[in-house]
């Protein structure tokens, strides 16, 4: 399994940079993805989305549908893309340490 090292910590990831084990997530991992995604700064808005995704995943065992995420966070999809240029899946879910999206993506 490939690993990435960031700020002295090592994370197991897959070839797309998604965490292998959601349990190994910590805030530094979000900063690692921020670098990778070319996001200049993690704002409160970023954290609001990340925390919401984690909370929903913990409670329901799945990532929320985009409509639910936008409704609860109050950010329109356009704003989500402004925060996470790769979008809610490859950007936000990866940063939040959720499992990689599957299906015919």
């Amino acid at each position, binding site marked *: 399994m490939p690993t990435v090292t960031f700020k002295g910590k090592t994370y197991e990831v897959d070839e797309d940079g998604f965490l292998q*084990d959601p349990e190994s997530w910590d805030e530094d991992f979000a900063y690692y993805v921020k670098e990778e*995604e*070319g*996001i200049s700064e993690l704002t409160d808005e970023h954290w609001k989305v990340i925390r919401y995704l984690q909370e929903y995943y913990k409670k329901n*065992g*799945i990532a929320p549908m985009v409509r639910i995420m936008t409704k609860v966070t109050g950010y329109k999809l356009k704003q989500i893309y402004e925060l996470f*240029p790769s979008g809610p899946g490859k950007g936000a879910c990866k940063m939040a340490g959720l*499992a990689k999206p*599957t299906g*015919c993506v």
Partner: protein
Amino acid sequence: MAEMVANRITDIGPPKYDEMWPEIIKNNYGKWLHHEILEPGVLVHVAESGDKLYTVRCGATRLMTTHMVEDYCKIADEFCGGYFRFTTRNNVEFMVTSTEKLEGLKKALAAAGNMPIGGTGHSVTNIVHTQGWVHCHTPAIDASGPVKSVMDALFDYFTSMKLPAQVRIALACCLNMCGAVHCSDIAILGVHRKPPVIEHSHLDKMCEIPTTIASCPTAAIKPSKVDDFKSVAVNADRCMYCGNCYTMCPAMPLADADGDGIAIMVGGKVSNSKCMPKFSKLAIPYIPNEPPRWESTVKAITTILEAYVSGAKRYERIGEWIERIGWERFFDVTGFEFTKRHIDDYRFAATTWRTSTQFKW
């Protein structure tokens, strides 16, 4: 924001469809009077203005190198003012405006050796197919391999127009059915015969368990704790190996060299001519995977085609022919075995059973 989005161009869509039209198409758009098939693979369209557009259709492998595309471009540059197009069945069409150019074009294509002219009228044209072992992660069979084998065997039907009606063949390497297998005269479909293997130690880490459970059409999956791992259990008696759970959950692979193979379906169509569009139906539940030539599959398809040629009336598609003679007769004339696997047992199955005394011995 950072470099990633600086200078990023988005939402520009494809180039407008008419940007790459040859002059003659631009001039006669919406003003065509009639067309004719001059010979297998060669069409002429006549416009109100009297303009004539000759089209030569060539078989193509769909999966091709940039070198192959360059070869097409060279032909197009030499004869067609730089224009050519691809059809909805991934054939290539070159268009010219005079019979002299048409003859030159035909010669050049014949000389190329890998641009066979055909696919028009009552023929077997290109096979709509998928990724197979070239690129996808859920296939039960290959795509390019079987397609090459079948087209080799049916090549004579590609370059002639001697069938009762056009025969559309499609292939999908799993029952996601990317493409047209569910609505083709003859369909080649990759199927599994074994339930998924469950990788308990990391299933919960890689997969959303509720999504995985919801992906099963027969509700064979339930949540389960195995050796302290949060995971799922599959009731093998309910599983029909569709592989949908693997699509959603990478920890449930089911590809299997011995189990996987081909199902053949027949009788589908999309056009509205004469009868409504039809779904294709199961003719052979399982043929083993036989790379690299898939002999048994090729033989089965040839059998269907030959029975159809000798039994069908003019203009009758395979599905219309079978419905006219009856499915029991179809199994008679092809010699295919009819098994319990042919009998629908999914949800609205009863609508496909026979509720009549009409049948042939």
